[in-house]
């Protein structure tokens, strides 16, 4: 995008004649929850704020955190994994600040996850999984969530239910081929399942049902190093994402085509996938933070975290912004 600058309409841009662009590195995941970031790129919001973005796509949320910890990247746009951020913060306290949450909720009517089964399946809830196989995303985060939910339903993984961890791309094929009886899947798996009529959601937002409503699996994070070294730029990034989140929430359908530019979704799929609940920094309220806290508490209860974590310490505070 070069260094040539358009006359800026942004009030926060400095009045100097020569405007130097700040280079900022972002690590992002190609998922729906990242929509605000796509909108910001599409609308040129970063350029308007005199920020030059170097954008690095990852398939695995851990690598986003790795790149942030090693200071190879400055911030993670919305959609970085909320749970993994806390796990990393536990190992390296004071590294991250969360400035936005993304997910879904039953009351608010946004879909985050679902229990996916065959169209003709009789499974209606987790209780029906006794003696069956259920799949979920690989790794300890989702294994813990699923274990927690199964416990709440009176089932013991291993003896009553078999958990199969499987890459996102394998989840629908596994259900369709009968290799597993159900999967606990993040969007857009459920939307694609319903649209192709190969599978359906037996439950919508089960995680919200059993852990916290609303439920946030995604977070927008930046490093404290970035915040300390370049507070003004960090503030601008937060502002840009805030503005983009507002735009996305206002006109989500209008921005659907943009999603297919950045994710695996094809344009026709982007037109029907469920809209996620996107919470910008300025909108975050105590309900959101409570929900996040409940999610993190699950890690502690299931023994993944060996100390209790207070999420308010990891949340970005308005006073920290320049």
């Amino acid at each position, binding site marked *: 995008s070069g260094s040539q600058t358009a006359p800026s309409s942004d009030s926060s841009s400095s009045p100097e004649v020569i405007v130097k662009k700040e280079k900022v*590195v972002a*690590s992002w*995941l*190609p998922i729906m929850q990242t929509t605000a970031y796509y909108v910001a790129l599409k609308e040129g919001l970063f350029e308007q704020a005199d920020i030059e973005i170097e954008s*690095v*796509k*990852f*398939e*695995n949320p*851990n*690598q986003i955190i*790795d*790149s942030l910890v*090693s200071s*190879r*990247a400055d911030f993670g746009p919305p959609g970085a994994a909320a749970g993994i951020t806390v796990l990393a913060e536990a190992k390296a306290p004071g590294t991250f600040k969360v400035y936005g949450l993304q997910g879904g909720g039953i009351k608010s009517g946004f879909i985050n996850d679902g229990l996916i089964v065959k169209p003709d399946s009789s499974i209606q809830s987790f209780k029906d999984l006794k003696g069956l196989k259920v799949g979920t995303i690989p790794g300890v985060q989702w294994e813990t969530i699923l274990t927690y939910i199964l416990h709440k339903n009176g089932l013991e993984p291993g003896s009553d239910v078999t958990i199969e961890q499987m*890459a*996102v*791309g*394998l989840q*629908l*094929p596994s259900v*369709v*081929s009968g290799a597993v009886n159900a999967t606990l899947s993040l969007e*857009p798996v459920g939307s*694609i399942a319903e649209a*192709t009529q*190969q599978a359906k959601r037996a439950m919508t937002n089960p995680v919200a049902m059993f852990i916290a409503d609303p439920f946030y699996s995604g977070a927008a994070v930046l490093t404290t190093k970035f915040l300390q070294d370049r507070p003004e730029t960090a503030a601008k990034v937060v502002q840009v994402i805030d503005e983009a989140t507002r735009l996305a929430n206002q006109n989500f359908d209008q921005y659907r085509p943009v999603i297919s530019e950045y*994710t*695996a*979704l*094809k344009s026709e*799929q982007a037109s029907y996938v469920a809209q996620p609940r996107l919470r910008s920094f300025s909108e975050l309220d105590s309900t959101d933070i409570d929900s996040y806290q409940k999610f993190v508490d699950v890690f502690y209860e299931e023994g993944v975290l060996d100390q209790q974590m207070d999420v308010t310490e990891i949340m970005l505070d308005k006073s920290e912004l320049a």
Partner: protein
Amino acid sequence: MSSSSLNRLSKAATSLLSVNIGTLILLAIWWIAAALELIDRVLLPTPAETFVSLWNALISGDILQDFGLTLYRSLYAFMIALVIGVPIGIILGSSEKIYQSFEFLIDFFRSTPATAMFPLFLIVFGIGDFAKVAVAAFAGALIIFFNTAYGVMNARKTRIMAAKVMGVPRWRVFRDVIFFESLPQTFIGLRTSISLTLVVIIVAEMFVGSTNGMGQRIIDAQQVFDMPQMYASIIATGVMGYGLNQIFLITENKFVHWKGR
């Protein structure tokens, strides 16, 4: 083997067919399995659907860029592996002692998934493309070390003795004799390596993430449940691997004419 020109002619004529026999059998199995719906159509598309998907991707041109980028990354990684691998392999193989002191590391890293090492490469080489190239080059170089060193260790002693007794400088014995002695084995290493390099690049594009490349195509297609597109991309990748192997095979047949003599 065949020396008469008649043989050669008939060979050329049947080669195209014979090349296809194995492939044709596989296609037939695929076609039958799909036609009889032994496997759900959604999970295993018909060959026709797949090739239509491939064809569409080709004429729309969007597969070409991904193909080119993956090819570029694989070759880049392979070149690094080659330049590092062959000389080091020869040196390793030339002395049992030296080989033994690196044997543990070579066998260790050969048996560790390159992708598990990715966090380390990310730290050292940054988050750009080069980290992926580096990890593939690493995996490829290990294979080249291993094969070249083996080739050197299994070299015919008489030839090395012949060169030694001539008073040829030590480094020239390496370059002129041991290198050639190990060449048949080195070529096997190169072919294993180029395929592995391609595999690691694809896997990195798939699981580490990339905005382009065949690996990204495969995982995207997989995630949105577009099976014809996924198989089309896999086929394109496999054809790339075959093509790269053919280049080596042709080079090998030209240069390593003394095999088995």
